[in-house]
C-alpha cells in the first residue's frame, strides 16, 4: 500500500544550523501520527518541505507516492496544511477566504462543503465577518478550514490548537477524529503532549534535526514504562538512592520500573523499619517519556 507520507534521507541546512540531518519517516494511510520535539527540532522545516514551502538540500519527500518537487501539483492536491503562524488576508470575510482557497485548488461550487466546514468549526455565525474582526481562536479555526477545503486525504496540523480555548479545542479534535475515522491521514505537531497521547497512534520525536524515537504510542510508553513514586519517610536505604528523581524535605520522588519493584522497595523499607507516612503513584505518561528521550538524546 502506498504510504501517505514518505520522507527519505531528507537534509536541510540554514546557514550554520543543520535543521534536518537525514530524516527518514514513513506514515501509513489512515494513521493519526504525532511529530513531537522541542522548539528548533526541525518539525516545521520537515512539514515545510512536505508542503513545498522549503526545498530540501538532499533526500526526497512524497505524498501518497507523489514527489513534492517533481510532481508537486498532485502532491499539493493531496495535502492540507494548517500553518503554525496565525496568518490571514485582511481584505476578505471568512466565507470569501474559504471560497478563494477552494478556488486555488481549482474547485468550483464547493458551497455545501464550506457550509459543513463552517458548521464543524463553529464559524457559521461569523461567515460574513471580516477576518480582522475575529478572535485569535476563530482565526485559527479558519486556518483549519482552509487546510480542509479541498478535502485532502493527508492533513498536517502544525500546532493547531495554540490559542484555542478548551471547549473549542475539544470540538476541533472531535472533528479531526471524525476525519481520521473517515480515512484521512493526520499528522500532528503539538506542544500539548496530552493531546498527542490522546490522539496519536504512532509518534516520532525529533531533536536537533534527527529522529530520536519512532514507535507506537503504546511501545513508547511501555519502553519507558515505569512508575513515579512519591513517598514521605525519614530516610531511604542506600541501595535506592540512585532511583531518586527529586527530593523535597522528607519526600522522595523515585523512578521505578514496575509494581514488582515497588513491592521490593516497600519490603526494604519494612526491613529497615523505616516508616512511610505518605505514598502516591503516578504512571508514566507521554510527557515523562518525551522528557527522558530528550534528556538522553545528544
Amino acid at each position: 500500500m502506498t504510504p501517505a507520507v514518505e520522507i527519505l534521507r531528507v537534509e536541510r541546512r540554514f546557514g550554520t544550523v543543520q535543521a534536518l540531518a537525514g530524516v527518514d519517516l514513513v506514515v501509513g494511510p489512515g494513521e493519526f501520527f504525532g511529530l513531537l520535539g522541542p522548539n528548533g527540532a526541525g518539525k516545521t522545516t520537515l512539514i515545510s518541505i512536505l508542503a513545498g514551502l522549503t526545498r530540501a538540500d538532499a533526500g526526497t519527500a512524497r505524498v501518497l507516492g507523489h514527489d513534492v518537487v517533481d510532481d508537486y501539483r498532485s502532491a499539493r492536491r493531496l495535502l492540507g496544511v494548517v500553518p503554525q503562524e496565525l496568518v490571514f488576508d485582511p481584505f476578505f470575510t471568512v466565507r470569501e477566504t474559504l471560497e478563494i482557497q477552494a478556488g486555488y485548488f481549482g474547485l468550483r461550487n464547493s458551497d455545501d462543503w464550506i457550509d459543513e466546514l463552517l458548521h464543524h468549526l463553529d464559524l457559521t455565525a461569523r461567515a460574513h465577518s471580516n477576518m480582522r474582526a475575529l478572535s485569535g481562536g476563530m482565526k485559527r479555526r479558519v486556518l483549519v478550514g482552509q487546510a480542509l477545503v479541498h478535502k485532502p486525504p493527508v492533513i498536517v496540523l502544525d500546532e493547531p490548537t495554540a490559542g484555542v480555548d478548551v471547549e473549542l479545542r475539544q470540538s476541533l479534535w472531535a472533528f479531526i477524529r471524525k476525519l481520521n475515522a473517515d480515512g484521512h491521514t493526520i499528522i500532528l505537531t503539538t506542544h500539548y503532549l496530552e493531546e498527542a497521547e490522546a490522539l496519536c497512534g504512532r509518534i516520532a520525536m525529533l531533536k536537533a534535526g534527527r529522529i530520536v524515537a519512532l514507535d507506537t504510542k503504546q511501545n513508547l510508553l511501555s519502553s519507558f514504562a515505569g512508575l513515579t513514586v512519591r513517598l514521605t519517610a525519614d530516610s531511604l536505604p542506600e541501595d535506592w538512592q540512585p532511583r531518586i528523581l527529586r527530593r523535597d524535605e522528607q519526600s522522595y520522588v523515585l523512578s521505578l520500573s514496575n509494581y514488582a519493584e515497588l513491592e521490593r522497595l516497600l519490603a526494604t523499607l519494612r526491613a529497615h523499619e523505616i516508616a512511610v507516612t505518605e505514598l502516591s503513584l503516578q504512571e508514566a505518561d507521554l510527557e515523562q517519556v518525551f522528557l527522558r528521550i530528550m534528556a538522553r538524546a545528544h
Partner: protein
Amino acid sequence: MNPAFGSGWLTLLYKELLRFWKVSFQTILAPVLTALLYLLIFSHVLEAHVSVFDGRVRYTAFLIPGLVMMSVLQNAFANSSSSMIQSKITGNLIFVLLPPLSPLDMYAAYVLGAMVRGVAVGAGVLAVTVWFAPLSLEHPLWALIFALLGSAILGTLGLIAGIWADKFDQLAAFQNFLIMPLTFLSGVFYSIHTLPPFWQALSRFNPFFYMIDGFRYGFFGLSDIAPEVSLAIVAAACLVLTGLTLLILQRGYKLRH
C-alpha cells in the same frame, strides 16, 4: 489531471481583482484625481508656452494620453507590488504557495490583475480629462496594444519588486528611485524633440518613453519614434521580463526557502 480539479489561477486573478476593488477609493479614484490635478496645473501653466508636433496638437491634448499612460503604468506597478509584499510581510502568501499553482499560474494572475487595475485607472483618467481638449483617436488598436503591453511590463516589474523587497521601505525605494523617474522622464509632459540633443539621446534608453510615445501615436497618428520601432522594443522588454519573472517564480526566490 484529476477532472475534479481545474486550474486555480483564475481564482488568484479574481482575488487580485477583488482585493483592489474593495478599496477602490484608494486604488482607482485617488489616482484619477491625481492625474486630473496634473492636467489642470500643467495645462494652465504650459498651454500657451509649449508647442508640440510643430504646433499640430494643442499641449493639453498632447498631455492627456501621456497622463493616461502614466496612470496605467504606475497603477499596474502598484497593484502587483503591493499585493505581493503585503502577502509576504503578513504571511498570508502561504495560502497561494500551498495550492498546486504553477509559476505560470502565479505570473498570469498577478500580472493580469495589475493590467486590469492599470487599464481601469487609465480609462478613468481618460474619462475625466477628455473634456479639457479636443482629442482624436486615430489608431485605437495601437493605443490599446501599448496600454496592454505597458501595463503588463509594469505589472511584471511590480511582481519582481514585491518578491525582491523584504520590507515596504525597499519597495518604496524601487518605486521612487526607479519607476517614478523613468515615468516622469519618459515624455509624459513633453515631446523629446523639445529637449537638448543629450537628453533626447538619453531618453531613447528609457523603455517607458516607447510605451508613452506609442500610446500617444494611437491618439494623434503622430509620434517621436516610428510606432513599429516602439512596439518592437516594448514587446521585447515584455518578453524578457516575463521570462525573468517565470525563472524567479520557478526557483522560488525569496518565496520558497
